[in-house]
């Protein structure tokens, strides 16, 4: 994006609205605790100072000791971008709140993450596999998935 993000300012602002939520920051990336993720995202969207009204994409990465879920937010008004990440250590039942109530564009992407990583999004109206069939065993994009 053409305008560089003032990350320190953003982190300070979030500290005020959602205290203790940001654990790491740098460049245009912030890492937040999973329990405060929804509050942070909703603050980034609704706070007119940031106005991150557009969810560019969301995805997940399996780092083996934890899953990282990435949200790429854009402010069409200010032409700025921020990557919000959160880390889930539970491999058995990883759960995150769905962000459909903020951005409906998350619908298929959350289903895709569920399909390929097995991360459940609570509050999603149709949480089922999107590409693979219903009887499929395992989650292929996990690093411990055994390919036959």
């Amino acid at each position, binding site marked *: 994006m053409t305008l560089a993000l003032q990350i320190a300012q953003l982190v300070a602002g979030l500290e005020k609205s959602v205290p203790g939520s940001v654990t790491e920051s740098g460049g245009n990336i912030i890492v937040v605790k999973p329990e405060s993720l929804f509050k942070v995202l909703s603050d980034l969207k609704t706070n007119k100072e940031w106005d991150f*009204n557009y969810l560019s*994409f969301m995805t997940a*990465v399996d780092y083996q000791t934890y899953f990282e879920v990435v949200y*790429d937010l854009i402010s*069409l008004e200010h032409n700025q971008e921020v990557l919000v990440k959160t880390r889930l250590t539970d491999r058995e039942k990883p759960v995150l709140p769905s962000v459909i109530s903020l951005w409906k*564009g*998350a619908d298929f992407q959350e289903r895709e993450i569920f399909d390929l990583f097995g991360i459940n999004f609570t509050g999603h109206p149709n949480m089922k596999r999107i*590409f*693979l069939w219903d009887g499929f065993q395992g989650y292929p*994009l996990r690093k411990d998935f055994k390919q036959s």
Partner: protein
Amino acid sequence: MTLRTETFILNAGPQHPSTHGVFRMRFTLDGEVIQDVEPVFGYLHRGIEKLAEGLTYSQDIVFTDRLDYLASMTNNQAYVLAVEKLAGIQVPERAEYLRVIMAELMRISSHLMAVGFLLNDIGAFLTPLLYMYREREKILDLYDMVCGQRLTYNYMRIGGVSQDIPEEFVPALKRFIDSLPRFIKEYEQLLETNEIVLIRTKNVGTLSKESAINYSAAGPVLRASGIKWDIRKADPYSVYSRFKFEIPTGIKGDVYDRYRVRIEEMHQSIAIIKQAMEQIPQGEIQTKVSRVLKPAKGEAYGRIEGPKGELGFYLVSDGGTNPYRLHVRPPSLINLTALRELLIGVKIADAMAIFGSIDICVGEVDR
């Protein structure tokens, strides 16, 4: 006496002439009116994101060709851009200009197909589409000259392009670019004075500004709803900051506006290609990059304005020879999210017009 009525389930696809590939929609109908629609994906899921983890960075370029196979060049471009960002590779100027020329030709070709298939879907069976194919054919001939391929190019490489343009390319490109505006005008005359086309596209499938943003719509779908947003201007990559061009937008966000935006964008692409041909310098087309690339540990996201919207590659490197994770931001899939809202309450006959105006490629939806 009250009549007992019940809803009716209609299945369209996966083998259906209007679904642009193996895509399926499950309609719930009340008479002729759509009550609900559920898109069903996965018939072309090849697991490209998983396969990419098993191959080296340069081997993965061939997979990108097979995402949106009507716009392989721009897929190449988005991927190599992400890799270059990840590994910190500079691209020679001439290669950047060649990439811009190829990408804009691809945009014209993809928009021709989008418009052609849309008309096909609304009942102008095959005739207008063949007009579009005529022009697309010339673009494919140009690509054939450059890299010997007509569909899956594998032309853009990490750090440049695979080969320089041959002698006969520039005159052929000039001929094509000079003739194209006349042909576009011809389509406009044939179609925009046609009352059936106007009735079937105007005020049909209207997507409001707020909804377009909320649904993460991108590309022509977003712009047709009146949002001036183009990655080429918002986050200029390659050498796009050196060209003068406009961002065409629509007003209502209906099927007609989406069609109009695509036609206007073709004109803008012609303008960009003309400027690029004037400015293109002589010189290298490829920087020295080791055959087996090992980018440092880290991540990068490279985005471009593809013909169908924001196309991006999110790459994570663990320092090895293969990407640790490769994620595609698929404009086709994300643009489809708005489909349900667009279709509910609409007559079934308009479903295909609305669906066609979104312009998807199933290779990219399912990956």
